[in-house]
């Protein structure tokens, strides 16, 4: 008799928890509790509203949406015309917020020396050159002013930014899938745990355990940057196989291509300086909460993003993006700083917008931009 009553008690309790209990059920439940006070404790504890999420589910939805958003954008699921353009006023505000995004800075001194890289140039916007340099190797090259995207033999998608090159075998045979990258690319790697995907960038090898990330390896820049959007990647350094760094989503690894010093790991939150002789693990630059956009991969969606960048640096981006040469007539102007987001704008528009925040004198002659 007791067992049946106990089961009835559980059934009623279950109905109450799921919201299915009728008035009669509830009345009966009350009665059973009165008759069996030993169940009251269980009842009291179970009825309490407990946190729905486990301690182990540390999850920042904001960051998750950011990664998700990029994924959808890349698949062309969001109509760009419908988006609101950010006003310059908003952007200055986000400059402040950005500093608090750098939560984790770990300084590790490890070897990373520069590997000499040779650049080629290719054809224009809607074409790319695919040449077979060595037997069964494919090479895809973009020149300044053009981007492209390709699909590798395994289905992995690669968005290649301007002024970049990627080399890969015609068909991925053997136990690994390997590519070499000079410049910048965004990878969306097809899951295949049996065949690790490895990217060679000179002195650093990136082994892909997860899916989507950005690698920035321009020869003219001192730092090599890897930003993980989704999944997990493991970065190792040539000649030091025991030193591995695993990136988690929205973490960015910045490696100095120059020579190194070995230092103890130090935790320094809120610092935005990147020391030149070290390796920094930081987080992706989260542009605005509203747009859930990450700076490092903005280029994939034809956006150029600058946060407090000197005109000199911006000029480099312009050169790359539009295939022009920028000439500065004065040094002072090189140091002018700007913050902006440009969504697929023409060079003229970009310069017009730059003018709004701080005036510069310029002329465009052919493919040359001359800044006074």
């Amino acid at each position: 008799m007791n067992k049946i009553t106990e089961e009835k008690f559980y059934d009623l309790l279950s109905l109450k928890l799921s919201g299915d209990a009728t008035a009669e059920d509830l009345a009966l439940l009350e009665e059973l509790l009165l008759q069996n006070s030993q169940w009251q404790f269980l009842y009291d504890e179970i009825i309490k509203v407990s946190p729905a999420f486990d301690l182990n589910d540390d999850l920042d939805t904001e960051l998750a949406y950011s990664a998700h958003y990029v994924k959808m954008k890349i698949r062309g699921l969001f109509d760009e015309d419908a988006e609101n353009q950010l006003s310059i006023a908003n952007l200055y505000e986000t400059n402040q917020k950005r500093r608090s995004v750098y939560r984790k800075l770990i300084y590790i001194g490890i070897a990373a020396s520069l590997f000499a890289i040779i650049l080629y140039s290719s054809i224009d916007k809607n074409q790319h050159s695919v040449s077979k340099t060595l037997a069964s190797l494919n090479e895809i090259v973009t020149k300044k002013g053009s981007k492209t995207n390709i699909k590798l033999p395994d289905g992995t998608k690669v968005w290649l930014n301007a002024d970049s090159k990627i080399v890969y075998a015609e068909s991925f045979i053997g136990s690994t899938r390997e590519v070499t990258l000079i410049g910048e690319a965004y990878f969306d790697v097809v899951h295949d745990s049996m065949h690790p995907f490895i990217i060679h960038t000179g002195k650093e090898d990136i082994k892909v355990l997860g899916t989507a990330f950005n690698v920035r390896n321009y020869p003219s820049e001192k730092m090599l940057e890897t930003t993980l959007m989704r999944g997990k990647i493991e970065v190792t350094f040539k000649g030091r196989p025991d030193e591995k760094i695993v990136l988690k989503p929205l973490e960015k690894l910045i490696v100095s291509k120059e020579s190194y010093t070995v230092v103890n790991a130090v935790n320094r939150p809120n610092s935005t300086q990147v020391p030149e002789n070290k390796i920094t693990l930081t987080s992706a630059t989260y542009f605005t909460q509203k747009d859930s956009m990450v700076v490092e991969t903005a280029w994939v969606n034809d956006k150029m993003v600058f946060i407090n960048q000197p005109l000199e640096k911006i000029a480099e981006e312009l050169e790359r993006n539009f295939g022009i040469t920028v000439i500065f007539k004065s040094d002072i102007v090189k140091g002018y700083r700007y913050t902006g987001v440009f969504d697929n704008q023409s060079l003229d528009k970009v310069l017009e917008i730059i003018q709004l925040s701080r005036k510069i004198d310029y002329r465009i002659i052919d493919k040359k931009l001359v800044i006074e």
Partner: protein
Amino acid sequence: MSLVKQDILYLQNRIAYVRDEQAYRKIFFHFHRSLFSFANKIVHNSEVAEEVVSDVLMKIWVMENKLAQVDNLRLYLYTAVKNTCFTYLSKNKLNTIPIDSLIEDQTPGIDNTPERQMIFTEIEQEMRIAVEKLSPQCQLVFRLIKEEGFSHKDVCIILGISQNTIETHMRLALKSIKKSLSAYLFFK
């Protein structure tokens, strides 16, 4: 961010017909965390769970106006997540759920600020431990009813099991919890 059923339906329409990205974002924020938690309990792999939830939520957008016809979005999402998880499990021929508690670095966007840490009382801990000892399906049933507040009927739909099975599982779960709490009875 809490939305009631009417809000969700409204947002569904905005997404389906107007293709409103802000509405989509709201839906994402509303469901993501609990869906992730749910998926994680099934596949025990946060990377896969993240992937599953992302794919399911992407479908919401891709289905365009068909989304407006979904009566109960929450139910639909949970069912979709459950199905996708089971597809993954069968594809990877995992009959037993792997223990990946050894690998800590898997969750996206770890944020250990005090606001996010939840402090459990000792009793709550005991209860959690008791629940975790239950069979996977039993745990799922219990969590869906207790934590997600789904009705018995909803759980039938999501997991594809009968009312009787749910009843059996709930009895087992509650009994197990009662047992784990019995130690505290003496102190009450």
